[in-house]
């Protein structure tokens, strides 16, 4: 909380003075006259808010075991979880494409385009609500949704259980992971999938090394981008914490469609949830796009232009969306910052399916 107040204070000082720290960082001429520099204590407090956690949390009801994670990995890559036998979770959440599909909208059962973009399944152990609209409270609950959605894998949990029981190798794997006489069930399948997904964590990015004290880990552009992100551009009002998301729902004023997002679940009086979608994490962003819940933002230029304009003015538009003037240089700095929170992807060894 102290950090938050500092930030507010600091943001105010930025509007007044802007980029104070640039002078010391890059030596380039600031766009706005420097009046009050961001003190090194303020910067240090701000940096603390983005420090990575030491360990990955697992819920009490579904603790981590190696066996469960290995089983979950097999299931994640196994197309037998789909009716056609040809679509696995990894078809859409492809590790070679940052655990997503690189598409503006996902392609579902019988190649039908879906309404939304596939989000990467990364750093979700820390998530508070899942799906673009938050309709799943846990990863365990979420895992059932794509399997049983008619336009995705189009299965029933009973049929998945039947198929896995028929595949000779799975019995022993479930046995090792869960024990019991009859361990293959909807509950254990989703528990294993959730456990595997919780192990998918971004690796250390240059930004993390900077936060940890290596002053040379990121360049001056990225550092100025970080200040813009927290100050003048106010991105951190929503893209907060080390994951750069508040796990919350906002209408950022994109072109509205029939998809009301969280508005479909909230009572109609909750205007703020109309057209509201979950703030995506910005770690390990694919720099080529497309972006947004339905891919309507084609590239980073379009994203930043959208925020500069402040989004379509409508009743549901988030209070945190305000137009902001950003120079070409500031836009480049924001992009340099986004690039600094990208890490080398972890090597993925594909499972041999039983």
């Amino acid at each position, binding site marked *: *909380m102290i950090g*938050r107040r500092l930030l*507010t204070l600091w943001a105010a000082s930025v509007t007044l003075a802007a980029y104070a720290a640039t002078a010391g960082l890059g030596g380039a001429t600031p766009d706005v006259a420097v009046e009050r520099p961001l003190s090194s204590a303020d910067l240090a407090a701000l940096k603390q808010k983005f420090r990575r956690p030491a360990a990955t949390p697992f819920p009490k009801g579904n603790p981590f075991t190696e066996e469960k994670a290995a089983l979950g990995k097999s299931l994640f890559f196994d197309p037998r979880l789909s009716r056609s036998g040809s679509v696995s979770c990894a078809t859409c959440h492809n590790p070679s494409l940052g655990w997503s599909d690189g598409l503006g909208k996902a392609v579902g059962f019988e190649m039908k385009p879906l309404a939304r973009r596939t989000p990467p399944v990364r750093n979700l152990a820390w998530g*508070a*609500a899942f799906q673009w609209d*938050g309709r799943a409270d846990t990863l365990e609950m979420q895992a059932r949704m794509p399997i049983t959605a008619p336009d995705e894998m189009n299965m029933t949990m009973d049929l998945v259980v039947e198929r896995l029981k028929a595949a000779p190798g799975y019995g022993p794997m479930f046995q090792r992971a869960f024990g019991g006489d009859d361990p293959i069930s909807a509950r254990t399948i989703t528990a294993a999938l959730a456990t595997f997904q919780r192990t998918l964590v971004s690796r250390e990015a240059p930004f993390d090394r900077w936060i940890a004290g290596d002053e040379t880990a990121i360049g001056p552009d990225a550092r100025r981008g970080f200040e813009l992100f927290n100050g003048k551009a106010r991105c951190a*009002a929503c893209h907060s914490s080390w994951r750069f998301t*508040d*796990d*919350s*729902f*906002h209408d950022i004023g994109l072109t509205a469609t029939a998809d009301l997002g*969280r508005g479909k679940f*909230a*009572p109609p*009086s*909750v*205007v*703020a*949830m109309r057209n*509201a979608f979950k703030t995506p994490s910005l770690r390990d962003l694919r720099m080529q796009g497309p972006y947004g819940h339905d891919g309507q933002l084609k590239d980073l230029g379009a994203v930043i232009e959208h925020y500069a304009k402040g989004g379509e003015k409508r009743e549901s538009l*988030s*209070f*945190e969306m305000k137009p902001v003037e950003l120079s070409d240089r500031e836009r480049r700095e924001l992009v340099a910052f986004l690039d600094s929170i990208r890490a080398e992807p972890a090597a993925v060894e594909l499972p041999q399916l039983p």
Partner: protein
Amino acid sequence: MTFPTLRHVAFAGLLLFSAAPALAAEIEIPIHHTEVADIGVTPKVGDTLTFVNHADIAHNLYLTFEDGTVQTLDTQPPGTTKRTTLAREGHVIVRCWIHPIIRMEFDVSDK
């Protein structure tokens, strides 16, 4: 994280009004960033809760009562107040439509 001073405020609000035992109490509950402060007391039916948004972001709280009824308060921009009078006893969960990490629970007594 806790806000001892602010919790004090909530407490003080209650004491002030409960001095006259027949009167309903008014309990002030501050919101800071994405935390609704603990209520700190057991309110009773008829008491009024006042949620004060000290954060610089908007909230939209809803209360789920033990019998399953849900009461949604309006969107609450920074610096604004939302008020509700507790109509029934039992366990109450306070959550926010915008920020699913917000959660505060308390019990309402019948008198």
